[in-house]
């Protein structure tokens, strides 16, 4: 099963490296692309865990949807070639310390906690099962969260339209707007 481990190491290395690049890159479009790599690698992990459907969703929704959305918004709001001025070193160091502390704390906790892997047979996750469970009202059914998420998506859609609609909130005049 070495191939397994090799794949895992590959994906994890990609995830970690590109994650770090995402949050440190000075060019915003590159950051978006690094994010895309991270997301793709993640979907690889999903495949490894045998959640093919989810991996597919991850690819289409994240890589295909959200990243595109982000890139569009970058194009709308920023100059692509623009370099960020880096934030102050104090802030960076402090944030790094906080993040590291948190990470170390979490890792120690993980390592100290003895997980016992379940011995039960894994359920085969196929599309039919997913579809049935999502719409089932039985004990194992997920119709309620499904409906909730539908409404949430609707609401988000409406909200996104309303918020982004031009000209609507003209009434509120904030003092800093005068230079506009």
């Amino acid at each position, binding site marked *: 099963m070495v191939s397994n481990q090799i794949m895992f190491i590959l994906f994890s290395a990609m995830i970690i490296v590109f994650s770090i690049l*995402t949050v440190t890159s000075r060019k915003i479009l590159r950051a978006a692309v690094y994010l895309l790599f991270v997301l793709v690698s993640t979907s690889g992990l999903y495949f490894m865990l*045998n959640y093919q459907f989810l991996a597919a969703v991850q690819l289409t929704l994240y890589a295909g949807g*959200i990243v595109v*959305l982000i890139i569009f918004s970058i194009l709308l*709001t*920023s100059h692509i070639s623009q370099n*960020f001025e880096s*934030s102050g070193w104090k802030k960076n160091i402090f944030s*790094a310390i906080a993040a590291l502390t948190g990470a170390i704390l979490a890792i120690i906790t993980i390592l100290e906690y003895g997980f016992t*892997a379940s011995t039960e047979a894994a359920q085969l996750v196929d599309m039919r099962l997913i579809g049935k469970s999502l719409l089932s009202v039985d004990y194992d059914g997920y119709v309620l969260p499904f409906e909730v998420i539908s409404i949430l998506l609707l609401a988000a859609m409406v909200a996104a339209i309303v918020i982004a609609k031009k000209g609507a909130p003209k009434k509120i005049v904030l003092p800093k707007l005068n230079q506009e």
Partner: protein
Amino acid sequence: MNSGIPIQYFLILATLMFFTGVYGFLTRRNLITILMSVELILNSVNINFLAFNRYLYPHKLEGMFFSLFIIAVAAAEAAVAIAIIINIYRRFATINVEEVNEMKY
């Protein structure tokens, strides 16, 4: 497929990803990059859910569905957030988070 890889590996990976996201959230100034950091965080959580589901409760589907919903929520969130960001940009002509601080005392 995942034999030979202990669950801890996944968890540690997710942790590192999570805190990379946190680091980004704390240090980036551009709202869009902050949003990206948030996406990282969400993804790390997803990995956790799936790992737990697969290793500890393989006969159940909760973790998977949770991840699914998180992805949906993330999508919604991204849509709304980007709408807001664009709006902010229209208003303030910047998306630098340090300059968008109207909501204070």
